């Protein structure tokens, strides 16, 4: 069953008298429960695509359809790159933010918040403000907030880019654990091929500006995965080198312009 | 001290009014009011120049603000009113003196008198009507307050039966009248005439009814000016009195000078409309320079009773007419 359907989508920005063609002719179907990673050179329009799905930006042409199965659930929730955690709300209030905005019953909000605080291991820090948290903890808050909102799809824009490699891996494991439980449809942007290999069912590779989907690779490795397994698997190394090469050539193309 | 200066003077009396050898500069503090007529006329008609005196005006918000400047020797001469602060500063060792008249009311056409709000002019017609009214006065424990007090005494109304409103500026009284915040005000020319023309207020009887000899403003001299620069001071006073006499000729004796004095006045004060000068109640200025000494002492007693005076002072040193007398010796006494 297709959850997200994108057809002939394109997006142009007007900057003074100049047009910037950010996305061009994107056609794409994502199935219910799929974890999809979007890879591409910087400035190719990944964020733009996600923002269109999140209804924060309007497409210039084409259609985006998200299949709603439960009218009571919100369509989508987004995990932002960094700083997405609101600094004047405590950890608890941040996690409860989406639920509060939907004006759900207090008990329900409390119970959900509690549950996801537990999940990301922040119960002890519920009363702290974001300034007192490390980068990794902040992203945990962001993830908990999105999951607590229980949306139909989850959109994540490089949530771990600002973390160091070791912390990144811990959070990846945690994300996978929560995801495995809920089996939400996830669209995840990253620059890291290793991250994509570890997390996704499917990797979409975008071209340099204007962004088009130029490669669609299914990752069939068994779950649960780990860095060790990914690294030791020769099949995975092959996929890595393959994507690497293609990405490198796209990046170089951008630099020549 | 005055005897000392007399000696000084005698030594030079061979040619008392020759111009100074070197140009002397005299700084006069003013607040831009009409009572500075003597200064303005003497300057513009060249009386100061005749004695080789160069005068410069420095304008202040009101006479109290001039005192530190006089005391600090920043200005030589100032126009001031008698007020508690003046006496206090003398008690503090600031040796400023009253040296000549700079304003009293002319009978029946006072330049400093009460006005009544336009819409109340038919209700408040006589002194007893002021009972229960709001009356604006521009200073506390100064000549305004004294005249206010004299008026109430004359009206047989106690201070508790009216509301005293302190208002720092005569302009503010106009605004407060327009806004019906006050009923009466102790106002000054040319705002009295201006307010009458703009239907803001009307004259309320006349201050000479109850304070005929009120000494409203005086010329103040700095101690340095009076002692160390005596030869300049004498010439300055002579020139000043000549200016005052021209003023007196025009406004009191109605001698026509082709509008020269009026144009000087219009030039130096805020009343630019020369025709209005024929309407206003002009400041009374004694062409012989003398002040109402008894009234000044009465005012002093009044402030003292109000508890506004700190310390005792010797009244004789405050009023110093020696300069006027010296000048009169030379230029002669003005005959009415």
């Amino acid at each position, binding site marked *: 069953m297709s959850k997200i359907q994108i057809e002939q989508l394109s997006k142009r920005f007007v900057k003074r008298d100049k047009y910037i063609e950010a996305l061009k002719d994107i056609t794409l179907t994502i199935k219910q429960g799929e974890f999809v990673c979007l890879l591409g050179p910087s400035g190719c329009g990944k964020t733009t695509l996600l923002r269109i799905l*999140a*209804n*924060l930006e309007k497409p210039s042409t084409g259609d985006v359809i998200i299949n709603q199965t439960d009218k009571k659930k*919100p369509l*989508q*929730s*987004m995990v*932002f790159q960094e*700083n*997405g955690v*609101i*600094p*004047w*709300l*405590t950890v608890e209030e941040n996690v409860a*933010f*989406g639920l*509060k*905005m*939907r004006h759900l019953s207090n008990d329900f909000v409390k119970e959900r918040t509690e549950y996801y605080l537990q999940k990301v291991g922040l119960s002890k820090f519920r009363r702290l*403000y*974001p*300034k007192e948290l490390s980068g990794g903890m902040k992203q945990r808050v962001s993830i908990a907030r999105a999951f607590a*909102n229980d949306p139909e799809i989850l959109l994540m824009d490089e949530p771990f880019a600002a973390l160091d490699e070791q912390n990144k891996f811990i959070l990846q494991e945690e994300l996978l654990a929560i995801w495995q439980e809920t089996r939400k449809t996830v669209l995840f942007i990253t620059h890291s091929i290793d991250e994509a290999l570890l997390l996704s069912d499917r990797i979409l590779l975008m071209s340099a500006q204007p962004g088009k989907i130029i490669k669609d690779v299914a990752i069939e490795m068994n779950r649960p995965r780990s860095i060790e397994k990914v690294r030791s698997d020769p099949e995975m190394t092959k996929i890595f080198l393959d994507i690497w090469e293609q990405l490198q050539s796209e990046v170089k193309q951008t630099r020549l312009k | 001290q005055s005897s000392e200066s007399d000696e000084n003077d005698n030594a030079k009396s061979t040619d008392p009014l020759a111009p100074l050898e070197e140009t002397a500069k005299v700084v006069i503090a003013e607040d831009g009011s009409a009572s500075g007529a003597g200064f303005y006329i003497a300057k513009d008609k060249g009386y100061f120049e005749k004695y080789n005196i160069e005068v410069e005006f420095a304008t202040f918000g009101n006479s*109290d603000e001039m*005192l*530190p400047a006089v*005391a*600090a020797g920043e200005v030589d001469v100032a126009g001031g009113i008698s*007020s*508690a*602060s*003046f006496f*206090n*500063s003398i008690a*503090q*060792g*600031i040796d400023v003196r009253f040296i000549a008249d700079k304003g009293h009311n002319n009978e029946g056409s006072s330049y400093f008198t009460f006005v009544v709000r336009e819409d109340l002019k038919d209700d408040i017609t006589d002194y007893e009507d002021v009972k229960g009214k709001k009356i*604006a006065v521009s*200073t*506390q*424990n100064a000549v305004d307050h004294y005249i206010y007090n004299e008026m109430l005494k004359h009206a047989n109304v106690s201070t508790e039966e009216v509301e005293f*409103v*302190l*208002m*720092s*500026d005569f*302009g*503010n009284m106009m*605004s*407060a009248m*327009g*806004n019906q*915040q*006050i009923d009466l005000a102790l106002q000054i020319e040319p705002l009295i005439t201006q307010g009458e023309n703009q239907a803001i207020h009307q004259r309320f009887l006349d201050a000479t009814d109850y304070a005929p000899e009120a000494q409203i403003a005086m010329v103040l001299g700095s101690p340095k000016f009076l002692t160390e620069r005596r030869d300049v001071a004498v010439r300055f006073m002579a020139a000043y009195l000549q200016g005052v006499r021209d003023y007196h000729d025009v406004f009191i004796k109605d001698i026509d000078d082709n509008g020269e004095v009026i144009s000087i006045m219009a030039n130096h004060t805020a009343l630019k409309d020369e025709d209005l000068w024929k309407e206003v109640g002009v400041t009374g200025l004694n062409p012989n320079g003398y002040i109402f000494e008894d009234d000044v002492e009465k005012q002093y007693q009044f402030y003292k009773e109000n508890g*506004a005076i*700190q310390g005792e002072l010797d009244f004789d040193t405050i009023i110093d007419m020696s300069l006027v007398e010296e000048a009169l010796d030379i230029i002669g006494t003005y005959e009415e």
Partner: protein
Amino acid sequence: MFKKLKTQSLPQLITISSPIFLLLLWEICSQYALLDPRFFPAPTLILTTLIQMAESGNLFEHIYISLTRIILGFALGVIPAICIGLLMGMYKYFRHFFSPIIMIFMPIPTLAMLPIILILFGIGEFSKMITIAISVFFPVAINTAAGVANIDRIYLDVAKNYHANAKDFFFKIALPGSLPVMLEGIQMGQAIALLTIVAAEMIGATSGIGYLIWMNYKAFLLPQMYVGLILISFFGYFFSLLLRGFERKLLPWK
């Protein structure tokens, strides 16, 4: 740039000693007439005067009256300033409408506004509060608008993404997000309120610290005038500290 334990009390020592040093210098200069003591009475004399005035009782009345005017006038300026500032920050048409008006009125000195205030608001307590309110209004309105405008775009996106309605957006994002810059403006407004009290108490006042200052100056009772100045200075310091404390309470997340 290195911090050692034993030096940590030195800064405090300097902080305390500098005003004391100044006072001592003044005292000596005044006692030995290096400064004209008629105009600069010695601090000890001012202190004696302060005590005398406090004992006679009506000093506290002056303080009470001025503080009432300052606090109410401050509130009277701050509340509309915050409302208009928030509107300006949130809606660009408001911003475009109000900013030229603010630009025009801001440079007009309070002293020059007095006649107009008097005409419009009379000579009662209200006109004094309005004087303070007007002078407080501008910095607070400007800072509030800047505060809203400077909220990081990402929080607006978060709010939108989680479907915050207008009310929630206002109370959960716009208001708390603009608070830090707004409080800077309020801190400035507080300073200005104190600076304005003398001007405000020039219209028909018969009491208050500002009245104390300029009346005593007019009466040439300089020690009393200095008492007034010291009071203003003290309350300036006190309010600053108070607002700083308030700020820390209000912005636990900063």
